[in-house]
């Protein structure tokens, strides 16, 4: 059965034929792309004009996000920026503590009376001078335990009832438990200790929920709403339970995205990790692609945990932390490289980038590999010498463009200062050096939304409207490539997805407006009307 879709414009990302008006689909794959005349050859085809006034693009590829996004939507959202949930409901951003209290109260009324009230997304950097503490939460909900996860997931604030439940309403002299003026814990709990004591009292951890089909379903629904057809879970434990959940979720014919889990390297010794990936190698399907491994080196810049080169943090804060000893991180790179496995490497700070460039260079000297496509992830302030090295070593970059908007103001004033903010997310330079380039959201850190991410890359505006690094802007066509073919390339799937051309999966994103014809500033506001995955149309009801 062949279906021919007509469209106002088809932007293909195929350099040999960048534009078209018709696309023919058969057996889930693209049979032809071209003009109306070119479709005459398919006599028995069914014509479908439902997208006749729309713009078709290759399905968007999100090269770096986490299925945790699907777990967090079990709970109430309290973020500063507006965000859309899996059911398509838009949660307005909360711009004041008062608005946050109202939302909390309203949300608590919807939660079963016997359960604690769990929420997430609060970002204190946007409320300077104001303090979130137990009193603020008590004022909204006092009769039962409340937990507010901060946006970074490393800090939480709880109310008095939760402090009592966890048995820490009276402790003193413990780092990580902030005390109020009365000398008692004021509700803010930082880092591992706090997470432990709260999970312990609640009897479950929010992070356990990733290995569930329900979480994966919810994650896919959010992705589909923003036009994504291929998505990653870029730190999957690949536990037996986790693999089963991936297989079950993606086996559902209605599952609307292709999934690429990358195995969390630090959960395994390299030999065990390699064996585990080998075991998974033949377990994939058209919608489930095992293969890469993910390595975490440092933390985040806004959390002051990224490893920066001299002069470190602009405001003089101490340098960040490694997730494992540098030598061990290098050894892990060598192992997976030697085994022929592709590495995705989280490195936020430029010192972490330097270490990983050294590691890949050494690995290449010892075991030369063409087309390894090792991809540095985030790498937000790579300097030009590092970019040239990356180019020479055949490395791909997946840059965290959304930082420009969400934390640009903070990087400018506190963490990085003026000059480093000129090369924050060095997108144009990466392209000039012909380094394969993708951009990403890192959801749940920032919302899934490739068009928004592309807008960040083009406009480079912070939330307050300051433009950071004009020289590093991408054009709209370049930005569209980074969220389609560019990201597909970093996932080693560019022969299957990322462009609309014969033989590839019929994965299409349908837009109501033309991103190449509109004001670049309007890019983020273009509505996604539907996605097509392997020829199946998924449209909003």
């Amino acid at each position, binding site marked *: 059965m062949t279906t021919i879709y007509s469209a106002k414009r088809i932007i293909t990302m195929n350099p040999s034929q960048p534009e078209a008006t018709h696309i023919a689909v058969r057996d889930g794959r693209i049979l032809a792309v071209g003009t109306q005349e070119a479709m005459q050859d398919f006599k028995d085809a069914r014509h479908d004009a439902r997208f006749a006034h729309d713009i078709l693009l290759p399905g968007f590829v999100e090269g770096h996000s986490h299925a945790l996004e699907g777990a967090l939507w079990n709970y109430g959202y309290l973020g500063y920026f507006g965000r859309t949930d899996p059911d398509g409901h838009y949660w307005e951003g909360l711009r004041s503590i008062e608005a946050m209290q109202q939302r909390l109260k309203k949300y608590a009324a919807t939660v079963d009376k016997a359960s604690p009230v769990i929420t997430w997304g609060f970002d204190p950097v946007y409320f300077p001078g104001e303090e979130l503490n137990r009193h603020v939460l008590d004022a909204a909900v006092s009769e039962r335990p409340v937990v507010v996860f901060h946006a970074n997931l490393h800090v939480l604030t709880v109310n008095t009832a939760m402090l009592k*439940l*966890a*048995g*820490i309403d009276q*402790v003193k002299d*413990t*780092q*990580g*438990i902030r005390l109020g003026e009365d000398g008692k814990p004021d509700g803010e709990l930082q*880092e*591992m*200790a*706090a*997470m*432990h*004591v709260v*999970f*312990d*009292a*609640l*009897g*479950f*951890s929010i*992070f*356990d929920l990733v290995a569930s089909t329900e979480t994966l379903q919810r994650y896919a629904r959010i992705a589909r709403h923003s036009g994504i057809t291929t998505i990653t879970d870029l730190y999957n*434990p690949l*536990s*037996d339970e986790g693999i089963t959940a991936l297989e079950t979720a993606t086996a559902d014919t209605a599952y609307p995205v292709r999934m690429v889990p990358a195995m*969390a390297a*630090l*959960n*395994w*010794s*390299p*030999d065990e990790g390699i064996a585990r990936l080998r075991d998974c190698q033949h377990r994939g399907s058209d919608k489930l692609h095992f293969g890469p491994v993910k390595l975490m080196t440092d933390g985040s810049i806004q959390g002051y945990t990224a*490893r920066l080169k001299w002069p470190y943090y602009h405001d003089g804060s*101490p*340098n960040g*932390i*490694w*997730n*494992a*000893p*540098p*030598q*061990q991180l*290098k*050894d*892990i790179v*060598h*192992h997976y490289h030697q085994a022929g496995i592709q590495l995705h490497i989280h490195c936020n700070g430029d*010192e972490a980038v330097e*270490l990983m460039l050294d590691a890949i260079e*050494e690995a290449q*000297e*010892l075991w030369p590999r063409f087309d390894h496509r090792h991809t540095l992830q985030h790498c937000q302030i790579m300097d030009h010498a590092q970019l040239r090295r990356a180019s020479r070593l055949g490395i791909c970059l997946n840059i965290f463009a959304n930082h420009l908007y969400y934390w640009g103001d903070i990087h400018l004033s506190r963490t990085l200062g003026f000059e480093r903010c000129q090369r924050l997310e060095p997108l144009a330079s990466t392209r000039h050096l012909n380094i394969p380039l993708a951009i990403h959201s890192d959801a749940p850190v920032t919302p899934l939304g490739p068009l928004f991410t592309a807008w960040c890359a083009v406009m480079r505006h912070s939330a307050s409207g300051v433009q950071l690094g004009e020289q590093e802007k991408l054009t709209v066509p370049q930005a569209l490539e980074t969220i389609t073919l560019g990201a597909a390339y970093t996932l080693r799937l560019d022969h299957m997805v990322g462009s609309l051309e014969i033989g590839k999966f019929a994965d299409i994103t349908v837009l109501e407006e033309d991103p190449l014809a509109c004001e670049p500033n309007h890019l983020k506001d273009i509505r996604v009307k539907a996605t097509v995955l392997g020829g199946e149309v998924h449209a909003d009801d």
Partner: protein
Amino acid sequence: MPTIKCAPIPVTVIGGFLGTGKTTYLNRLIQGGLRPDALIIVNDFGDINIDAALIEYRDDNVMQLSNGCICCTLGGTLAEQLAEALRIRTEPGAIIIEASGVANPARIADIARVSRRLHLAEVVCIIDGSRAQQHAADPLVGDAWRDQVKAADTLRVNRLAPHGTREFEQWLRQFNPHALIQYETEGTPADASLQPPISPSPPGPISHHAAPHGHWHTFSLSGQEKIDKARLATLLEAYQDVLFRAKGFMLVEPSGDIELLQFSGGRLHWQPALHAPKETRLVFIGLSGERFSAFEQAVRLLLKDSL
């Protein structure tokens, strides 16, 4: 919701840098006899010196020993792991955590300080005396090293010459003036009387090319010379501590055949080469330094001698 019935579980945190001997210390604790219901959380089972016959059950993250101990590898964050372990297993009688080589033990100790089910027993930091000053000044890891030393109740110093302790202690005190300092000098563990002798632990999966800090150096040889296989093999073996990889084609003495040489992970392998150039082309990769230079010289001499 869990209810509190018994005394808090004592928690011991073992910190210290990669390669300083944390695992050796842990192995010693295990062999010295832990309480049977202890939970041990480690980075990697592979480094732990457990008699295979004692392992009763094992899955991805947990190993149950027939003498009762449970081992658990670190995955996800430690807090998650610990919370999960306490939820799904019988309550352990003690918890021993081997921190990662760059972890700040103070943050881990916080878990025990905060939780009403846990009690912080001790934070031990293992220090490699021969490399401590280098670690403290290392631009990549110096800050993590200082944090580890600062957080400890007990500093256990090994690999230090017996006569150097006084100066070393003075230097070390600037980072932690209060901790108990124990020395383990060459051949005489500080607590030798309390602990059984240790057999050397087998190399972990990554130790065979775990390079200390430094850079790679590579040199290559080419020409028509024939090389004596046995003499080259002796050299490769003698310098395997700085040599990570050697490979290439060589003309073999006296036959003049071409063979492919591969040296990796301390293992040497030869095989006949069929479609290879009729000349020697060898590449050696190792850790730059005097010793590697000496190796290079010796190999070049060998080549000359073969002429």
